[in-house]
């Protein structure tokens, strides 16, 4: 029993409810949401410390013992993801103060942000597959509102698509859970894992269910060929919302794939993992093609999400200890750096008033801090050694080579250069060159207020890269239950 596990969900939940009462008072809303986000970071830090000292923590909600009630499980992987979620939430809330506008703030914006964070953290923490579905829905409903809030024409059109896609994939999720329940007869994830491993001969239906889960989570996590909804939907919401989506939503899908494939569907290393690997590699290629092709800075970063999803899933598909460590490293790095990059291009759009890369240049003359922050973020996305993207990608590729998956690893190495090119393109064409006088007059007070949270998150990601040695022990602990699901099952069911 450890109520600390549920606290990262409870703090934003209480904040979200209290924020509804102060809908019209924007200043109070800002204070409450920033304060609760800060508290939540502290709570998540405590949780990480607790898990690192005492191993996997679980909480049987309502005192019902593990397989019968809903269990919240915090192993190192979920604790780390919760921590990065809270950090991103805090940064996005800080950025929202000056950028989102009073009109949206009055319509429950901060409250919905909190609900979004509840959904994401809940999906990371839960140990029950149906509860995971519920938290997915909490997350998605909040994201529908965040996508449409403001009600411009493009937002309405894209949210209709987004909603349709996600309603369908949620229906698939329920069907997949129903089929899994009819086979194993339980919803507790640890017990599902235990029952599947204890089978002598795995029935073929389980492979079908695994593919169904891959479709569901692939739809949420935007893998090839289910990524089609993402480039359009992510381009329309306001910048902080976009950062929240890009950093968190797809990563929940990836986390779910990691969790289910290591815990449930580890029975057959053959076709399933081969399929995942092929899809991951194509996802990487699609993402890279998109990010090179566009001259719209939003689309460049959006397609880089897809690339990163592919890289992470490649590590999962290779499924050795090295590659999984790489995947987890890269997952957390990517959450942080995508949030930073989205906020950075948000600032560029804020200054220049356009997202078309051909329409501006020479920003570095007037905004050197912004430029060098972007430079660091871009290098770390590309995976230049001392920065955060390096270790994850290196371990993933190394794991691939160790498992004799040369083609996939080579593709990931080559595409890294193209990823770097796609973000450097923004730096070269946008920041270098002759300074356009047009936007210089737009320098205003909110520049520093907007830049501050970005610098915060970039600094965190730099520390994450430079201090990879210190982080590694945590990551190793996170990977342990992925390699040996027995540890997870033991921790949840025994006691």
């Amino acid at each position, binding site marked *: 029993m450890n109520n600390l596990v*549920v606290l990262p969900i*409870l703090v934003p939940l209480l904040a979200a409810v209290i924020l509804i009462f102060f809908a019209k008072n924007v200043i109070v809303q800002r204070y409450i949401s920033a304060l609760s986000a800060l508290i939540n970071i502290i709570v998540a830090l405590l949780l990480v410390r607790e898990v690192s000292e005492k191993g996997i923590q679980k909480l049987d909600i309502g005192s019902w013992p593990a397989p019968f009630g809903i269990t919240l499980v915090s192993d190192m992987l979920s604790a780390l993801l919760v921590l990065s979620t809270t950090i991103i939430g805090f940064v996005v809330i800080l950025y929202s103060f000056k950028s989102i506008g009073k009109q949206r703030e009055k319509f429950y914006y901060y409250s919905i942000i909190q609900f979004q964070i509840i959904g994401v953290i809940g999906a990371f923490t839960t140990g029950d597959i149906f509860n995971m579905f519920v938290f997915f829905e909490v997350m998605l409903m909040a994201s529908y509102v965040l996508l449409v809030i403001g009600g411009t024409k493009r937002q309405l059109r894209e949210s209709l698509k987004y909603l349709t896609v996600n309603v369908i994939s949620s229906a698939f999720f329920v069907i997949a859970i129903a089929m899994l329940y009819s086979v194993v007869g339980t919803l507790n994830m640890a017990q599902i894992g235990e029952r599947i491993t204890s089978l002598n001969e795995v029935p073929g239906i389980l492979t079908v269910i695994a593919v169904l889960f891959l479709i569901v989570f692939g739809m949420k996590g935007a893998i090839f060929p289910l990524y089609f909804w993402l480039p359009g939907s992510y381009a329309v919401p306001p910048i902080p919302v976009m950062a929240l989506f890009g950093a968190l939503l797809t990563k929940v899908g990836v986390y779910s794939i990691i969790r289910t494939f290591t815990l449930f569907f580890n029975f057959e290393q053959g076709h399933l993992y081969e399929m995942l690997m092929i899809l991951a590699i194509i996802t990487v290629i699609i993402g890279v093609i998109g990010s090179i092709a566009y001259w719209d800075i939003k689309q460049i970063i959006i397609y880089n999400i897809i690339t990163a999803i592919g890289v992470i899933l490649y590590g999962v598909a290779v499924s050795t200890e090295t590659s999984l460590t790489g995947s987890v490293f890269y997952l957390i790095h990517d959450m942080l750096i995508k949030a930073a990059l989205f906020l950075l291009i948000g600032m560029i759009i804020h200054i220049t008033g356009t997202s078309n890369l051909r329409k501006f240049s020479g920003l570095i003359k007037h905004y050197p801090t912004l430029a060098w922050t972007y430079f660091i973020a871009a290098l770390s996305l590309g995976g230049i050694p001392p920065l955060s993207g390096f270790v994850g990608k290196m371990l993933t590729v190394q794991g691939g080579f160790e498992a004799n998956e040369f083609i996939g690893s080579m593709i990931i190495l080559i595409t890294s250069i193209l990823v770097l090119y796609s973000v450097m393109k923004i730096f070269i064409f946008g920041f270098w060159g002759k300074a356009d006088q047009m936007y210089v007059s737009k320098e205003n007070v909110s520049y520093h207020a907007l830049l501050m949270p970005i610098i915060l998150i970039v600094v965190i990601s730099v520390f994450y890269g430079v201090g990879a040695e210190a982080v590694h022990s945590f990551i190793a602990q996170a990977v342990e239950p992925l390699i040996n699901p027995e540890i997870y099952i033991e921790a949840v069911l025994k006691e």
Partner: protein
Amino acid sequence: MKPNDVILQSVTKVAVVIIFTFSIYLFMNGHHNPGGGFIGGLSTAAAVVLLYLAFDIEKVRENIRIDFKKLAALGVLIAVCTGLGGVLFGEEFLTQAFGYKELPIFGKTELTSALIFDTGVALAVIGTAVNIILSISEDR
């Protein structure tokens, strides 16, 4: 000319009382019989919607001075705080408590903390349902 809906209004006055009573019955019976917070809340909302249909929105708003958005939030707050009650007594989150009490009219009655949770659910459902209807009806 204003349509004369005296029959609708008279029937509503009687029917609303019946619906309210029935919804409270459904709500209180949830533990041992079909019913509970969700259906109880929904049928209460149905009664409120009937009021809105029979009388005009301004009139009902004068008499029921509740901000339904805040009612929904209050419901969630109650539900969360019930869960926190368990934490307060050193148990797991959302742990329930129950006991038997001699009440004046009902005699020996089982009182549970789940009822408080259900109150939260019911309030949230009423708030949400009525709020949806009201938001759609206001064309602006």
